[in-house]
């Protein structure tokens, strides 16, 4: 398949490389020209801009930072006037923003799929991402061969926006999960109890989770390198809270977690992994 790929950061680069490995023909574009180099070396063609990345392709995929970036990229994609094109955005943005982009693209005759991912850089490199998609059956089916090169657990959740709703739900669980494990560890340490033993014991009970297992171990190792930067987790929980406010939906746990990540960004920890919320908790209780 001929695919255009826009956005070649920590996530986008390995995802695009996996599409090449899967035998697809790739045209890439990134705001910073040097991010295109690894892809060009692997056999991709360079586009001069996002419009050119869409032209002549059946599928165009974006993986960028935030909703305004996606909207801008997709306006350029629509300008290509490519009949029958399916545009897929795999960034994490607000469900409402995804629905708006879907409407704008539909007016230009382009089908849109919102397909955010979970699994981080590790999953992107290994091609084992979870992909949660929103859009028409037809558009999803067209994008599926590309999804299969990048992910393992690929779920068509519903209509436009449903993928982003699912990703937001994912960020609620992972955000509160990280904070829950950090609080448990802070509690154990303040009580003079060995947290590595606490983790070991909890792994056998109802408190078991991948977050306790993987992130818990990284907390014990004091390894706060991202991973997933806390400013990005803050951004995602901001999407959750914004959407909740629009709906009049009460999410007290997400609100508290969002404020902790907010405090991390404010105290200069934004570039660290969101599991560094443990350090913030320790600081607040004089545990340093």
């Amino acid at each position: 398949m001929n695919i255009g790929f826009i956005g070649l950061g920590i996530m986008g680069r390995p995802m695009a490389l996996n599409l090449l490995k899967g035998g697809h023909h790739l045209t890439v574009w990134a705001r910073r020209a040097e991010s295109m180099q690894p892809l060009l070396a692997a056999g991709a063609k360079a586009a001069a801009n996002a419009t050119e990345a869409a032209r002549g392709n059946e599928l165009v995929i974006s993986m960028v930072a935030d909703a305004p970036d996606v909207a801008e990229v997709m306006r350029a994609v629509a300008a290509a006037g490519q009949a029958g094109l399916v545009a897929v955005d795999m960034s994490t943005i607000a469900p409402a923003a995804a629905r708006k982009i879907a409407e704008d693209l539909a007016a230009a005759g382009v089908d849109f799929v919102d397909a955010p991912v979970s699994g981080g850089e590790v999953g992107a490199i290994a091609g084992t991402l979870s992909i949660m998609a929103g859009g028409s059956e037809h558009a999803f089916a067209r994008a599926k061969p590309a999804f299969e090169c990048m992910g393992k657990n690929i779920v068509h959740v519903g209509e436009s926006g449903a993928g982003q709703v699912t990703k937001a739900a994912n960020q609620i669980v992972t955000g509160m999960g990280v904070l829950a494990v950090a609080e448990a560890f802070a509690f154990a340490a303040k009580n003079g109890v060995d947290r590595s033993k606490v983790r070991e014991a909890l792994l056998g009970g109802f408190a078991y989770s991948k977050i306790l297992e993987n992130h818990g171990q990284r907390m014990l190792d004091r390894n706060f390198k991202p991973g997933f930067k806390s400013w990005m987790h803050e951004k995602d929980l901001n999407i959750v809270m914004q959407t909740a406010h629009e709906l009049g939906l009460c999410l007290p746990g997400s609100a508290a977690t969002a404020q902790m990540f907010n405090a991390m960004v404010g105290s200069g920890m934004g570039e660290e992994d969101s599991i560094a919320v443990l350090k913030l908790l320790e600081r607040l209780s004089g545990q340093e």
Partner: protein
Amino acid sequence: MKVGFIGLGAMGRPMALHLHRAGHELFVWARRPQSAAGLPATLCATPAELGRNCAVVFTVVTSSADVESVALGKDGLSEGMASGSILVDCSTIAPASARHIAAKAGRKRHTPARCPGLRR
């Protein structure tokens, strides 16, 4: 091994049955004797009497106060349990209360251990 078991509710009863199945001889005490009905165990009149019979005793009750009363109260376990015997409390109670019971019971030269059941 002769094992004592106090607290035969939703958690305690199946736990005690596992001990029986593993071949241990069960001694039980229950505030309401009917909760011990049908259990393959010797029913004791007081925690102290149960303590006199067993080298290891498990408690699975509700609150800190329940554990303290069973362990340290009148006719409680500490009045019966011999030196060198082991009291294991599997209830979920406050850490400070667990430390208090350990210190009090330990003074009577038992060896209390704590292992709250995790599936709550």
